[in-house]
């Protein structure tokens, strides 16, 4: 699943560790999500969306038409 996490993080000048700490996950998890190796759970996707004040579908894209 594609996502804009790395872009959103860069816009705020946050390191992966900074974002991980704000989401209460490991830095490895942030890296895995950014590189598309791991899809976050629904609760984590909600936390990410709330942190960036966006909707989940504004951050994650499964490639399927809406």
């Amino acid at each position, binding site marked *: 699943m594609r996502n804009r996490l790395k872009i959103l993080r860069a816009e705020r000048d946050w390191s992966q560790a*900074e974002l*991980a700490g704000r*989401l209460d996950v*490991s830095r490895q*998890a942030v890296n895995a999500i950014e590189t598309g*190796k791991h899809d976050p759970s629904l609760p984590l996707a909600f936390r990410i969306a709330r942190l960036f004040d966006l909707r989940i579908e504004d951050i994650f894209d499964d490639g399927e038409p809406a």
Partner: protein
Amino acid sequence: MILGTKPQLGPGESNSEKRRLRYMGYIAFCGIVGGIGGFATGFFDQGDGSLLTGDWELLRLPPALALVIAALMLAGFLVLPLYGFRLVDDYQREQSLVGYTGGFLGVMAGFPVWAALHAGAFAPAPNAFGIFAIGFVSMCVSYLYSRWRL
């Protein structure tokens, strides 16, 4: 960075650092528990038996120490792994589950394969420690694979 001064951490980085230290403390504690159990088993064994060769009847430990080691093993192989699941996030939990699955499948496949090879005179008779070792090594290899690939 000026030598001797720490860079200012953001609130998220500070949380990440605490999380990392908590996890490292957990790993260190697991290592200490395993190390004490293993060392005590080897150092205080009074018999001529060996876990590796399967002559269990010759293993001898003082009863009180045997109870302590049993408690340590219970902590090391049951309580601490379960507690570890509470420390990690979804991503790390997935990697752990791949490791545990690999260990389980290693035992499930390892015993019948070993038994068949023994029946065909290709291998010595299966023993409990050998099966444990297969499970443990399978678990470690599966976990490392998941850390590499997932």
